């Protein structure tokens, strides 16, 4: 169903964002702990990175229908 598609996308989006958030957070924490002396900014950075990626992915996913796909014609 086409109406479900959106929902699915959103689900995917959320899931993806959660994952990415978590992963970002985790990596941020890791990096913060490991490399950056428990500063806050890697965590935030990582989280932000994750969220941003998630956002971007979400957007792309939602936008995917409207994006024109082009092909490079092979030269004969």
């Amino acid at each position, binding site marked *: 169903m086409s109406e479900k598609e959106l929902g699915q996308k959103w689900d995917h989006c959320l899931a993806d964002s959660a994952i990415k958030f978590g992963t970002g957070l985790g990596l941020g924490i890791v990096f913060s702990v490991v490399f950056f002396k428990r500063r806050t900014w890697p965590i935030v950075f990582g989280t932000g990175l994750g969220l941003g990626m998630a956002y971007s992915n979400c*957007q792309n996913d*939602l936008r995917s229908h409207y994006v024109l796909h082009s092909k490079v014609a092979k030269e004969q």
Partner: protein
Amino acid sequence: MLRVCWKGAHAAARQCVCGKVKAHPLQHCRKYSTAGDSGSSAGKIVAASLLSVGGGLGGAILYAKWDPKFRANVEKSVPYSDQLFEMALGPPPPPLVLLQKKPIEPLQIFSLSEASKESKQPKDKAKKSDPAPVEAPAAVEEAPAPTAQTLEEASVEAAHIISAIGEVPSVPAPGTSDESPPGHTAAGEECKDHHEPELKERPAEEVTARLAQQDKAEQDALALTLFPTLTAGLEESLGSTAKTTLQAIGAQEAALTAIAAHTNKLKEAMDSETPPDEKSSQWKALNEALSDRTRAMEEAEEALLKAKGELENLRGVINSAKQSKINTARPQILAAEENLHSMIVDLDKVVTKVQTAQTEAKIVSQYSELVNEAKAQFQQELANITPETQANWKGLSGKLSADDLTSLIAHAHRRIDQLNRELAEQRVREQIHIEVALEQQKLEDQKALERAVVSTLEHSREDMRLEQEKKAQEVREVMEAEMRTQLRRQAAAHTDHLRDVLKVQEQELREEAQEILNSKMMEQETHYRRLTQEQLDTFTLDMNAAYARLKGIEEAIDSHVIAEEEARKAHQLWLSVEALNYTLRSAGADFPTEPLEGAVGVIKENCAENEFAQALATAIPEESLSRGIYSEASLRARFYDIRRLARRVALIDETRNSLYQYFLSYLQSVLLFEREQVAPPAKLAPEDLDTFKLLAYANYSIERGDLELAAKFVNQLRGESQRVAQDWLKEARLTLETKQVISLLSAYANAVGLGTTQAP
């Protein structure tokens, strides 16, 4: 301040879409106001807000100046901004041709036609069923039509046959009736023509024919009766007349002789002076002679009369014979006439002789008379002188006295003297007397001559006539002979001609008879044929009528069978359509119906020959057959989800599809208040193509059960809303199609059922 910014942005966004709320233009909020300035006074706030407003306006105007699209947008959304812009910037640049306008127009027309109905589905169904019944009765009418047609054909055939029969007898009849009278008339005319020339020819031949007839008649008559009688008569009369004439002639001659004798005697008596005794004997002889003479004369007279009578008779007979016109008797007639003539001539001669003798005798008798007279006178004188002697003279001689004698002598002397004197006188007057006598004689001679001349003339005339007659007779005979030959020739020619004519006539008559016979035969034949034809025709007519009826019955039965077959088929069709309808009801809340394949297959089986039904059955979309369709209720239920979703993604389309837009769109949907159901207008204007409005219309329609209209409205959605609603739309389309086809089928089945149902 961020919130304020957000608010402003939201308001702008709302304005852009709905155009209700006057808001600031959508623009990246460039105004960054310092956050957390809670200690600013109201004035500062006011000033800040004024500034921001002014800045916003100016910024908007500047941006509008730079971007005409933006200007148009703002003018569209903000009511009096166009005036402001015009005031500030001047008239707007000429608008570009918007391609978006075009698809709106056909939509309008479409929506007009649709919206004008304001119909619920049953009405649509009813309208769709209209073409179906029209077609169905047409299909159904075909069934009873053949029956009527065949009956009509049969009746037409019968009518043809009857008319043919009616024509048939009339055809030969005019022929015969026309033929026979012309034949008759022609024959009659021919006959007449034949007759007429024959009639015309006859007068020319008539004469010869009549002559021949006459000849024949004559010959016949001659042969039979008249000729012998005539000749006999002629001969008889000739004989008798000859006899009588001879007798008469003899008598006349006898008379003549008697007269001569008498005269002689008288003369003797007178002249001679015989002695008295001889005188008495003389006188006796004289008397005798006289008596003889008289007797002879009488006899002669008688004989003459008789002869004359006989002659007259003969003449009459001859005349009658002449009149009888028998030419062959002519010589006899002529001979008879000659004889007659000769007899008459002889008779006349004799008569003249007798007459001369008579005249002589008369003279002599006169003389004697005179003498006697003288004597008488003398005697008288004597008597006077001698009155005593009164006796007759003859017996007187003995008784005479002297006186008497002397007186007598005296008388005698005196007488002698007298006589001498007379004689002298006479001698004197002799000449005169002679002359007188001569004259007398001349006269008498002339008379006699005249008489003789006359008689001779007559005789010669008679002779001439006879000659003429003879000659004529001869000529006639010759002519007759010639004429006879000519006539014979003519008769021969005539007979030849007659033969030819007869032949021709015979031929013609034969032909005529043949023709008449033929015509009669023809008539009879035609009559017979007509009768037989009539019989045949009546029989054929009856047979044809019976056959036609039989055919009609058969046709009726066949048509009945066909009709029943049709009815059965219609019934089956209807049942299968009902089954199909029933399968439609098998749809559940969220799952579709059973696949319609089975029911449609049944329909296809049942109406294998019905093209319409076949077409309709094939027109059912594949999906519905394989998967089944959703019910209206489920679609309705689904619609609400669709609606909600579509509202949420109302702003998303190709240009705007970032997550932010999604958020905005969601916000819009949450914050936008509107009526859930709005009655769709009759005409769809471009501003009605707003998602929310469309959804409202669709909601309204679907609430009223008009899935079609709802689908139409949903079809007008654009962008993400369209994508979201696509499946639903597809399902709705499927359902609508299938429902349409099924309704058509059921209407058709109903119509067919109605059509095949025969009224009792």
